[in-house]
Structures are given as C-alpha cells and as structure tokens.
C-alpha cells in the first residue's frame, strides 16, 4: 500500500511536468522558476535544519565503542572503533562517511529449527548497494557540472573519462548510470521482498527511491535512446540559470523537463525528509565524539542541581544503628 501511494504521487508529478511543458507550454515555469525555487528551498531548508540540530546541545558524551579502548599502554587499542582523540574521531567519521563502516558489519540472523539455534551470516548486499548508489550519485552529480561551466573544468572531464572507461557505444556509456539504477532497484526490491523490510517501510521511503529511480531513468533515456535531447540547448539553459540570466531555448524536449522537474522536486523535498541523513550523519553524538570520557570532563550546558541524600542526612537517619555496630561516625549525636 505504502509503495503504491508513493508510486501514485510520482506518477502525478510526471504527468504534471508532461502536461505543463508539453501542452500548457510552461517551459519558463519548469525550466527556470521551479529549479530556482527548488535550489532556494534546498539551501534555506538544509541550513535551517542543521542550525536547528546544532541548537540542541550535547549534554553527555555517549560514544558507542566498537573496539578496544585506549587504556594501559601494552594493550593495543582500536583508534577508529573506539577513538580516543580528535584525529581518531575524524578517522572514524571518514570511514563511516566514505566507506559506510558500520553497515559493513551487517549480519543476517537465521533461526534453525533443530536445537533450536540461531546463526548469524554475513550480509554485505545492503552495504554494497548503499555504497554503490551513493558513490554513483556523487559522480553523476559532479559529471552534471559540465552543463554549468564553460570551459568544462578538468576534474569533470577526468571523472567522465574514468566513468566511461570501457568505451562502449556512442555516446560513451557511463558505468555509474548502470550502477545507480541497479543499486536503486536492489534497494527497492529488498524493501518489498523481505517481510521485515516491507513492514518497516513507509510511503516516504518508497517515494525517495522512486523519485531517484525516475530521475535516473529519464536521464538514461535522454542520453542513450532515440528520445535524445539537444545538449546544446540544455547547456544554454543551465548556463543561463547559473549566470542568473535565465533563457528558455525552444524545443528541448518533454523528457528533459520531466527529468529537471523531478530533480527540482528532489531538492525541494530534501530538507523535509529523511534524506537529511546526509547532514545528520556528521552530527550523531555516538559516532562523532571521542571515547575519552574519563580523560577529559565533558560539560553539560544545562546541568542543574538535584536533590540528593547527603552523608549528614544519611548518618542522622542511621546513627544509632551504626553506633551499635561499632562503625565510625562523623557526629556523636
């Protein structure tokens, strides 16, 4: 059900953009106004969310340790799993953000009816698909920079030639185009195939996947199929957008506007959704703090005095019993 409603919303979005640019001739709205609005919402929303998160203080240092602490000098510690210094924390975060360290640990539980016993198998597919998707997305995003810069910077050309390493077809086939679609398809299939995943998945989880898939598919259709669009016109539009002198070239093709509109939706949707994990991963206190609790005191900014049972009150209550037991007393009476 959740997946179907997500699919319906996506279908509506596609129809809106088709009708808008195909029949209603609202190219300026879809080619200029929506992208500008989307970028604006994205930037303002993203920054707003980060600031709001940052406004909540971190009262306690609650590092999750996934390895040996630094204690006695002859015991080997695991700096990236239980970091004891800022530098080690940076190492841990880089492992997490660039290579998805924690996801790499993933296991799968299996209940055997003999015994009964539970066994834990390795389970690296989620890690692999997640990593493949995120890296492909980044590379594709960087590749798109060619539309927004003249001349095309060297790093973009470099990425492009690496991405089309296999030199298949014309236009050259980008490996990341295939990887991102395969990875997203896998991430979708595991949500519906595994009953546990189906149970925890919300409409918004499916929506994010469908939106990304649709963006990928429209991109691929534009590049590799007869639905090909006029790249020169697209570059003209893109350059107009970045130079803040928007122009709307004629006849770019409906498929491009669907692609652009979905990208706009993605950007505008981003700050309001779970996609904010992109910013949040940097701010998770269990990962971005050092396990040096007993070395450096962490201060809680909203700490307040609490009611305690002081030694004096305690001794007052038990003095006679303590005296009878011959225990030392602060006051005789």
């Amino acid at each position, binding site marked *: 059900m959740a997946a179907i409603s997500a699919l319906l919303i996506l279908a509506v979005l596609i129809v809106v953009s088709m009708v808008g640019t195909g029949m209603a001739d609202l190219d300026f709205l879809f080619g200029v106004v929506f992208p500008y609005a989307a970028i604006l919402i994205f930037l303002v929303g993203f920054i707003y969310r980060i600031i709001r998160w940052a406004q909540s*203080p971190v009262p306690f240092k609650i590092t999750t340790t996934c390895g*040996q602490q630094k204690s006695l000098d*002859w015991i080997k510690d695991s700096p990236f799993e239980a970091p004891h210094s800022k530098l080690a924390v940076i190492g841990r975060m880089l492992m997490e953000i660039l290579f998805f360290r924690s996801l790499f640990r993933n296991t799968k539980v299996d209940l055997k009816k003999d015994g009964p016993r539970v066994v834990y198998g390795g389970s690296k597919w989620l890690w692999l698909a997640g990593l493949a998707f995120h890296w492909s997305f980044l590379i594709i995003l960087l590749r798109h920079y060619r539309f927004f810069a003249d001349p095309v910077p060297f790093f973009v050309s470099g990425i492009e030639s690496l991405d089309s390493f296999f030199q298949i077809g014309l236009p050259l086939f980008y490996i990341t185009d295939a990887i991102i679609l395969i990875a997203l398809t896998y991430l979708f299939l595991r949500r519906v195939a595994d009953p546990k995943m189906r149970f925890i998945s*919300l409409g918004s989880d499916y929506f994010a996947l469908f939106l990304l898939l649709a963006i990928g598919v429209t991109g691929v259709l534009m590049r590799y199929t007869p639905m090909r669009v006029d790249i020169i016109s697209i570059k003209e539009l893109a350059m107009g957008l970045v130079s803040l002198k928007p122009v709307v070239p004629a006849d770019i093709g409906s498929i491009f506007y669907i692609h652009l509109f979905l990208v706009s939706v993605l950007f505008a949707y981003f700050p309001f959704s779970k996609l904010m994990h992109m910013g949040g991963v940097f*701010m998770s206190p269990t990962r971005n703090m050092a396990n040096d609790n007993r070395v*450096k005191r962490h201060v809680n900014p909203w700490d307040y005095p*609490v009611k305690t049972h002081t030694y004096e009150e305690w001794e007052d209550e038990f003095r006679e*019993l303590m005296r009878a037991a011959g225990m030392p007393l602060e006051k005789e009476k």
Partner: protein
Amino acid sequence: MAEKLVKPEELAGGIDYKPKQKDWFDPRVEFRRGTWNYAAPPDNLKYLDLPNPRKWSPTDEDWKLPDNWKEIILEGLRDRIKRFRSLQVFMDICVRCGACADKCHFFIGSGDPKNMPVLRAELLRSVYRKDYTLAGKLMGKMVGARELTVDVLKEWFYYFYQCTECRRCSVFCPYGIDTAEITMIARELLNLVGVSIEWICTPAANCFRTGNHLGIQPHGFADSIEFAVDELEELTGIKVDAPINKKGAEILFVAPSADYFASPHYYTLLGYLALFHEIGLDYTWSAYASEGGNFGLFHSHEMMKRLNAKIYAEAKRLGVKWILGGECGHMWRVIHQYMDTLNGPADFLEEPVSPITGTRFENARSTKMVHITEFTSDLIRHGKIKLDKSRNDHWHATFHDSCNPSRAMGLLEEPRYVIKNCMNKFTEMPENTIREQTFCCGSGSGLGTDENLEMRLRGGFPRANACKYVHDTKDVNILLCICAIDKATLPPLLEYWVPGVEVGGIHELIGNALIMKGEKRETDLRGTPLPNLAPAEENTEDKAETGEEGEGDV
C-alpha cells in the same frame, strides 16, 4: 520461576520473523503475563518526589493518568528535543534501512516486529512527526505520523520496557542511532505522568535512602562484609582486613551491592577481598556509597545524577586519592560516560596511580575511577601476584562481554587478559556474539523481574544459544561476566536454555588462583575441592610477562 514455562523447543519454535500484522500503526498491545513489569508502588514514588503516585497495574483499563497527561508528554518531548541533540538527530535521520532490525535480542527471541530497534524508535518518532514536523501534520501515515493516544502511551510502556539499553543496534546503524538513548528519553516521558515500574523505582528509592539498591542499612552492610571476611578465613585460613568508612585510606572501593548479598556475585566479593589483602592495598569500603550500580540510569538522567552523587561525595569526605570500581555493567556506563559530567569535576582527587605497580591510569585522569579489570590486569602484567592456573582446571570458561563495558567503554581486552592468566581452559563464543557485538543477558536496565520472565528468556535466547554452542562443542561449563545483573539473571537463563553451565565473575577465578602467603586451601571459593591440591610453585608469571594468549582462542 513461579509461572509454568513451556519447554525451550516450544518457546523458540514459535518464533517467526515474518510480521503477522499488516502494518504497525495500531498501537494496541495485549499485556500477556510474563512480558511486562509491575507498576511502581506509590510510596516509593513519593519518597523520590516523583509525579502521580497511585496504585495501578498495566493490565488495568484505566491507568489513572493526570487529566493533562497528553500536554505533559508532548511538552516533555519538546523540552528534551531542545536539550538532547542525540534525540533531535535520531528523530530526524533514520532512513529505515533495516540494518538494526535483526540485531535486537528481544526481536531475535520473540519475533515481535515492534522489537526491531527501528520500529521501537518509530513508536516515538511517529508522535514526534505528528506534533513537530510539517510533513507529519500534512501527510500523516504516508510519512509515519501518529496521534498520541492512551493506547500509544501503553504501547510505549510495553516496548520501552522491552529494551535493555544494550546499544547493540547502535553498533550496526550507519548513523549510530542509539536506541538506548531513545528508550532512556521515552522512559523519562512516561515517568512524567507516573508510568514507571517497580523494579526500577524501588531499588532507586532504596539506593537514595540507604546507599544501595537492596536497601541494606549500614550495620547490615558491615555485617555482610564481616561475614564474607569470616567465610574467606574458613576457605583460606587467612583473616583479611576489610575496612569500612575508613578516613584517609588511599582508595575507595565501590562495587554493585549484589556482590555482597547475592550468589554467585558473592564469590567475586571473596575474590576482591583476597586480592586486596594479598597486595596489601590501602583501601576502604563505604556504607554510604555502598552501591556502584545505578538504577537511576534506567529511570531518568536526573535520577541517575541523584543516585550517583554519593560516590564523589564519599570520596571527598573520606579523603581518598582515587576510586576503584568493581564488576558491574550499567554501573560502568554511568561512571565512564556520565559521572564526571553529572557530579564532577573530581578535582579533590588525584590522578589514579597503582600503589603496587606505579602505573599511572592516564585513561582515568579526569574521572579518577579505575575499573577493577584494568587494575588487576596491570598487576598481572607486572608480575605482582602469583597465580596458580591449575586451581581453576575444573572450569572451562567462556566470556560474556557485558553490554556497557563493551559498547560504552571499549573494555574488551582487560577482562580477557585477566581470565587467560588465571585459568587454563578458555574458549570464545562465536564472533558475532562477543565483544562489541555481544548479546545482552535479556534482563538489563531494570527488567530482571520474575513477572517478566518469559520476555527475559526470549531476550536472553541469543546469548544462551551462543553459550550452548561452546558448551556442546567444547564442554564449556562456566560463563564468566563482569556485570551484577548478568550474575543475577544469567543463571536462570542458562538453566532454561543450556543446563550445565554455571555463571561466575572474573575475580572469583582470580580468588581461586591467587597464591596467598600463609594460605591453607583445600577448596575453591565455592567450597568445591580444588582439582590440584598441590600448589604449583611455577606460576603464571612467565606467560604474563609476554602477554601470551590463553589456549582455545577462536
């Protein structure tokens, strides 16, 4: 085990990881006997100045909530979102990737989908979304938003008291979302309207009043320490000194109260006493700070602070240099991650230095409290104690990493080093069940009650199962651990799932192996005849010097 229990095969046979319901939005839960905890008695709530003290039971239709309970909870949530970045971020960034789903021992042992950490958190998130986010207000179910109702509150009570705050899920989460943190805050919210459990509030009230969870008064405390001293004399022929509230001692020793009142904790206490005597440690117990454990952690950040305050206050009053802490799990989460922040700075203490080896415990420079396995492994490393491993030859051990020392401290090698130097036969459980991936005993965070037994057996199933593996394949007959809740709740758990495996503390085995000057020993600390009556003079020092690993390491 008062209730009649089904056979292990039956209990595990009924587990199905495929959810039966269509979705999770319906909050109604069935309070089936064996899966929930008794409500906190009004007297103890009053003693602790906590809101809405009254008699009630989770099975009642009417929980006698205050009229404005909903406002209280929602306001409490808003307040905590502003005070805890962890909560704010954890409410917003979960992508429901499902990596945590099958990592929770309660899910593995029950198959109840709301025991998947992701869903446990969604129970709170759904209300947060409805109340706090634009998307939640507009889109409702599509984005997982739910209205807060009495049924939701009851569901929270059920499932946030089916989380032992063990943090295993947070190890696997790509964003480090920690369900322990979410559970802690959810319980704080429930406490605001007087929804809390007896097994947390009663020990907390006891601890506040007497100094320890068991409510043992100072003379009773002195009695039990004295009793242990006598018992140790009977076992070893040596009368040790165990000072209480001694001013000017070098070190204050704080242990969980179960160590001096429960079994098999008690043998660990005998081990501490023997060890401190043998190295001539200038230390003292305290009857005021007679509890290292902290049930406040299971209640609220405020209660944790209230109960923890005694440790530094007593160290200051007695004028000790630093503090040594015994074998306990959640106690060490509080000491390592919270104490200095809550009740520090401990600037009246000195940076801990072992008086025996001269080792400076730089990792405890600020908090000034050292874990007993850090202290003992340092003694062994420097060859300061003589250990006869063969005295533990009747044991083949495995080690259960307690949740908090492993996932909130990184204390993994110290206990292993001690174990391998005081016994010959040691085998690790399978790798996905130890160290940072260790499984909870199933009874942590105040859930170790009799009325909750079925859920404890389910939650402890993964731990017991890993133990069964080494019992069946290697004849392991003792599960060692460094946690008082473990020592209390693992014995019935193992008796149910894997009979024939005992539970013990590390310092019990140290106490067995320790060669004491002038000792006359025929039995181990449990009174069982020693396997090798002739003490081997060739002790373990050589091995200790090279830090060689024990056998059977898998």
